[in-house]
């Protein structure tokens, strides 16, 4: 079954209320791959992640993880099938301290990192484990948001703009973490605006525009396609 994709999305349509926001999105991710969605603001990248997670409920089409249909599942069953979600707004809880935030998501499968391993990887979080979650700096909150899903044993991680608004040194740090996760064989679906960051970690890119997938290419072609991307992304 190694040829079958880990995640298979076919003809995905989604709506926010009455407004039709995804138009037949197709997406394949193989086990161990890091795939990055590119596109302008409002192209549907975050929406695609939210539709896969089931946070956005009004969907049609096919979403299969390891061949198992996710579309019919209630929201809390999606994570239990082995997906970790790191939302764009990071979702650190103000009424929980760092350690409670870290241990909040229930374990979804065996083989997650232990709290000790996580604290070794993110020493800052250990130092501030008793602080209120939202008292952390933006970079620390992002680390916490990523660390939180590593504990659960999820092998497939959805990461929504992890570098947004962060200082270069923190971006570098997050890049190192993602590289380490790739080495562990994690599968990552990344939404990212920062090309240089994405280039370092992504095996493949998908390009989105107006709720559609308009192109897909391997990571090493990024430089050659810069002109085309500039046109679509307007950067």
């Amino acid at each position: 079954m190694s040829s079958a994709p880990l995640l298979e999305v076919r003809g995905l349509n989604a709506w926010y209320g009455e407004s039709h926001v995804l138009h037949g999105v197709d997406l394949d991710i193989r086990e161990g791959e890091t795939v990055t969605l590119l596109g302008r603001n409002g192209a549907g990248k975050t929406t695609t992640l939210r539709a896969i997670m089931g946070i956005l409920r009004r969907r049609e089409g096919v979403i299969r993880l390891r061949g198992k249909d996710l579309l019919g599942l209630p929201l809390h069953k999606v994570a239990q099938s082995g997906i970790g979600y790191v939302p764009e707004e990071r979702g650190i809880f103000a009424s929980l301290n760092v350690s409670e935030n870290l241990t909040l998501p229930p374990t979804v499968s065996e083989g997650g990192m232990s709290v000790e391993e996580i604290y070794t990887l993110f020493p800052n979080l250990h130092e501030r484990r008793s602080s209120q979650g939202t008292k952390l700096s933006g970079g620390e909150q992002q680390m916490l948001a990523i660390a939180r899903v590593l504990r659960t044993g999820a092998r497939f991680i959805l990461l929504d703009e992890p570098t947004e608004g962060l200082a270069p040194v923190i971006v570098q740090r997050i890049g190192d973490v993602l590289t380490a996760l790739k080495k562990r064989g994690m599968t990552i679906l990344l939404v990212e605006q920062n090309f240089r960051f994405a280039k370092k970690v992504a095996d493949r890119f998908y390009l989105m525009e107006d709720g559609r997938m308009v192109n897909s290419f391997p990571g090493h072609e990024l430089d050659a396609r810069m002109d085309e991307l500039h046109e679509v992304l307007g950067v």
Partner: protein
Amino acid sequence: MSTIFGIPTPALYGQILIGLINGSFYAMLSLGLAVIFGLLRVINFAHGAQYMLGAFAAYLLLNWLGINYWLALVLAPLAVGVIAVIIERTMLSRLYGVDHLYGLLLTFGLALILEGAFRYWFGAAGQPYAAPSQLTGAVNLGFMFMPVYRGWVVVASLVVCIGTWLLIEKTRLGAYLRAATENATLVQAFGVNVPLLLTLTYGLGAALAAFAGVLAAPIYQVSPLMGSNLIIIVFAVVVVGGMGSILGAIVTGYVLGVLEGLTKVFYPEASSIVIFVIMAIVLLVRPAGLFGREE
């Protein structure tokens, strides 16, 4: 006889004790309301009726089945909690997606139906419920005589309030509850069964009200309207403490109970409105309540 500000001290202590007793009920009831509002965003107008159901459950268990007070203290909250779970599953859970007003109207309607039904069956007059024999009599505290049952109510309510607070602040279940209060969708996206959490929370809130009802049965009479008399004050307590704040509900409950008792001593004419005056002042100065977070 010794006096403070011209008030005989026994009268003063007596009113403080009554204030503490009332405060115990305010605290337990506003705690349940705060927990329910925090997570479900439902203003549970049926809370007073659930308190009344707890008292009636104790009364009926005793008079129909001969089940004593101590067992009723466990069975009545359990029974009312189960009823609340059924209400949440069959009715309330359908209203989460719509305006909060619908939840309020539903629970208000349920309260009217429950109170009406019990008035039809038992009449508006109160039914007596004797305190258990172990808790009758009074103890001499040196400065005053305290009826044993009243002391028990204060202790039991403190234990329940602190226990609930610990459950919410210190356990894993409590962490789910706090997190879901902030962002239920994300907590569910992490794999927590939030719909179940909502159901259990409503059941727990109602069970707290019923526990307060059983405690109240020997002090106030068991009557269909006992809850609606109390619930208005309890809503004021929740507003003063800050909607959804657990600690705020507990502290404000006891403090306002005692303040009300003191007002009875120093300026009796104001005793029935003092809590509402405080509420008005708090709303002017801190609209989110004393312990509330601005949203």
